[in-house]
């Protein structure tokens, strides 16, 4: 694992952006793995600015996102599909058919999971996977305890996640109960992984990721065994190293 320390969130986003652009500009058919959450938003904003300055184009790029809520259609503004379109896709001129997210409203979800895996394989696997780091070490919706051998699968959202969301919904039934996510092995298959970490509250998680043991109790620890991981972390996130 290569650790690149940067000053702050902005630096992290810029550094990640330059790296992605170099890849995109130098590859014939780059395949990017993308994540939602607040950490990569700065990266996406930077990519949009570079696109506007015509320093990069995305016509030849394919993307695969990590996860999606089950039961939400693409046009639901709470879906990750909608989120990605708003935060990135519609601003960078990428043909929407080249952007992939697992479908949360597929009739047969296990079939959808298999299909998503084969789509990734047909694309020749992910060249660069962007990841954020969950406080408990989760990556994608792979919570602690998920098998390292997992492929794209359906997860039950745990009670704490659902309760945290419950205040937004008058009835608990309205809170999504499941998500469909790339498995840990799916993520590990990526040729390269770029992990973005920012802020003091991530310091413990980053320290555990780098110095802790490799255990399913802390999913991100598996990254220690990947041959090509770049961690871009700001000073605050590195404060416990």
């Amino acid at each position, binding site marked *: 694992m290569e650790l690149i320390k940067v000053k702050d969130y902005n630096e992290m986003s810029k550094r990640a952006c330059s790296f992605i652009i170099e890849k995109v500009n130098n590859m014939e058919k780059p395949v990017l793995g993308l994540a*939602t*959450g607040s950490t990569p938003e700065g990266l996406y904003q930077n990519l949009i600015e570079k696109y506007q300055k015509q320093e990069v184009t995305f016509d030849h790029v394919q993307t695969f996102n990590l996860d999606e809520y089950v039961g939400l259609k693409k*046009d639901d*503004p709470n879906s*990750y599909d909608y989120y990605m379109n708003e935060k990135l896709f*519609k601003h960078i001129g990428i043909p929407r058919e080249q952007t992939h997210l697992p479908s949360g409203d597929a009739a047969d979800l296990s079939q959808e999971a298999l299909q998503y895996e084969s789509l990734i394989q047909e694309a020749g696997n992910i060249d660069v996977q962007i990841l*954020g780091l969950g406080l408990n070490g989760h990556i994608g919706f792979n919570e602690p305890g998920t098998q390292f051998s997992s492929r794209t699968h359906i997860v039950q959202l745990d009670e704490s*996640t659902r309760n945290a969301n419950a205040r*937004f919904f*008058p009835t608990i039934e309205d809170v999504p109960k499941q998500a469909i996510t790339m498995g840990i092995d799916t993520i590990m298959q990526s040729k390269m992984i770029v992990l973005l970490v920012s802020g003091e509250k991530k310091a413990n998680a980053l320290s555990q990721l780098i110095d802790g043991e490799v255990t399913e109790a802390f999913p991100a620890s598996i990254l220690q065994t990947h041959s090509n991981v770049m961690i871009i972390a700001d000073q605050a996130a590195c404060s416990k190293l």
Partner: protein
Amino acid sequence: MHYFIKADRFILENHIAEAGYLSVENGRFGHLTKTVPDSAEVIDWSGYMIAPGLVDTHIHGINGYDIMDGTKEAVRHISGALLTLGVTRFLPTTLTSSRSDLDKAIQAVTEAVEEGLPGALSEGIYLEGPFFTEAYKGAQNPKYFQDPDIGLFEKWQSLAKGNIVKIALAPEREYAMEFIKTMDDKGVLVSIGHTNASYGCCQEAIAAGAQNFVHLFNGMSGLHHRNPGVAGAALTDTNVYAELICDGYHVHPDVATLALKVKNEKLMLITDCMRAGMMPDGHYHLGEFPVVMQNGVARTEEGSLAGSTLRLIDGVKNLHNWSDQALFDIWHLASLTPAKSLERAEEIGSIHPGKLADYVVLDDELSVQATAINGNIKYRKMTTGNEDE
């Protein structure tokens, strides 16, 4: 289902109320109280303000989709996008086009609504055209302009299963008065627009039953002191509603505030938004016309403003900044006034006991944090779950 919204401020009809608990029961608002029983279920929005859901009565599209796409997908996407902007109800609005394109659009809206929309709910279809006048065509295609035709309207109304609630027309066209009277009898609202009618003709149209003017000052003859024209008719009649696009481009800010002083609560904020709303600058089309959006302003090749890319909440903020009127007054021009214009104020448009609980959660910058329809929170700004990543 009974819960209370705890918040710092609430935009009520005549004032902004301070911190309290707003009851929501079975999808409708109850009373605002200072305390709640210990057992009450409370949704805590401390630090935020609760406002009535916005109602956009004139909107063609947004976020890359347009009602004239004629697909259910477009209608659903528009509905979803509006929700994120605090709009809870809207009139899917068509524009002048070929018979077959209009048929298709009307059918698509009707089917999408029947199957259920993911976000903002439809209050019925608004036909902007095709009974207009070339002199003020704006971005409407004059190739399809014609005289009002009740038979044609009836065909559309039957395709829409009775859901066309409003139609815009130029009253100087032949058969217009008869058409307006028929609409009035049927309970369909008539709006005057894209017209070169005389002041007197507009007054006649109002007497026949027209209740609304389409985007005031745009697509109409202006106010002249010896010849009041269409704008004059819209301003001098105190009973009719006038739509206003408060993006700062369609109407000068000072003229917008002048219109507010004259029309008061009959001034109705709308967007007239087209597909480029929420989208980056670039090339789009409106109906059959290519449109270029630069710095958020969309124009046809001839240079006409081609709809807007305004968000209704930004219209509210703009007019609030331009005028000296209180926020609760301006907000209601985009919620209660449109509800009244649709004769739906008994049910929607303000936070009032018994009305449907459509509301928006706002931060200090009036940025939308969450949107609820019929008491159900349908959208929240940060999707959670992976939020800590």
